[in-house]
């Protein structure tokens, strides 16, 4: 296997690391950078548990090779809060009980953050459509949708 030297910014922190050609971004985040907030679910792009932002765009980190993120900016769930202060999306998930077991929650919160960054005022239909790539097997979808609606309100208020 060949190793590649890459430069990447993860949650605002610059890293220069050696990665294997065959590692996924998910493996690099969890096993190399110890950022275990990002979860591995299906490993084939269906479940969204591993969703991160790459240059602000939500992506399944299980379907990205680690060397692909050279010179890219990554945001994981650990990067949503600011010095211990939860983001509006995180606050809204807590307040609205937008989780049960919590395994899908990091992926949902990243997907919701990416959605609200692009569209600050989504309809319920748009929320359900744009979050269709994230599965919650506890099936608490209504509370998740309500959390995203509440997050949108919180962000509008500032």
């Amino acid at each position, binding site marked *: *296997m*060949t190793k*590649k030297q890459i430069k990447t910014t993860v949650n605002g922190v610059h890293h220069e690391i050696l990665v294997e*050609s*065959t*590692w*996924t971004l998910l493996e690099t985040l969890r096993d190399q950078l110890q950022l275990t907030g990002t979860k591995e679910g299906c*490993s*084939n*792009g*269906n479940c*969204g548990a591993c*969703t991160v932002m*790459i240059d602000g*765009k*939500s*992506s*399944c980190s*299980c*379907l*990205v*090779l680690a*060397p*692909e993120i*050279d010179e890219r900016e990554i945001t994981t769930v650990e990067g949503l809060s600011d010095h211990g202060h939860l983001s509006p999306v995180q606050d809204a998930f807590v307040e609205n009980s937008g989780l049960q077991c919590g395994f899908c929650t990091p992926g949902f919160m990243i*997907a919701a953050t*990416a*959605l609200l960054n692009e569209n600050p005022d989504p309809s319920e239909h748009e929320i359900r*459509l*744009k979050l*269709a*790539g*994230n599965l919650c097997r506890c099936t608490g979808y209504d509370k998740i949708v309500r959390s995203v609606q509440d997050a949108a309100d919180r962000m509008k208020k500032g």
Partner: protein
Amino acid sequence: MPNFDYEAPKTLTEALELMARPGEVRALSGGTDIIDQLKNNRRNADLVVDMKRVSDLTKIESDESGLRIGSAVSCSEVHKFTIENDRYSALSESTELIGSVHIQNRASVGGNVCNAAPSADTIPALLIHEAIAYTASAEGTREIPLIDFFAGPGQTVLEKGEVLKEIGLPTPSKNTASAYLRFIPRNEMDIAVAGVGSLIEIESSTQIVKKARIALASVAPTPVRAYTAEEYLEGKKISIETINEAANLAVQSAVPITDVRGSAEYRKELVKVLTRRTLNICVERLAE
């Protein structure tokens, strides 16, 4: 994951040199198909060549001659580019329903074409525009009508060392509308049981169909055109009856299999229904 090397060339020349190397060399743009296939040994590679840093392949442009989509441009970018341009409604629709938004942000239209799944959602939308595949290899370039690009499920006519560079769509004439619909058992995140793209050009004073293009997904070993239905519609006045007859005729071009997603019979019925619906949407769009 099986072992392979990875390179991310910055120029097309460099990329083509890498693609010509001995062994199994695979182009990667979005990676949403190929990485899953490599993980599961459904395709193999000694070298993976990431095309996303080759500027020639990441451009999307349109002018009076048509639309040109670099093979590494993501579905999200194609959607964003075409959503405000009603000339390419079917393409705009198909790029918004592949997988999830997380997949659309990575997956490229060029990759959807090269992966050559019979169910690929963007392909009917490209075929109804009579898209051209522009390829490149160290030996030179080729222009292949997209309808001739597919050799079977997951197979294209690309040769060793050859990559898809760009997909070109000529500018549709005025009074042209298009639509793409697929059927899946849920609302999102599924593979088409059947998909239909339709495009019609209508002479506005007479309501005569000047041009009809209908393409089908998931009902043959490759994406196909419904030539019999197209030929029937051209020269006819558009009406409920002619649309229904075209929908019936489109079924003749479908040679589906029975599998876990649906029976052959069911897929034929879907072709009829989706052809009728897409043609009706085209008529509504032309009336707007």
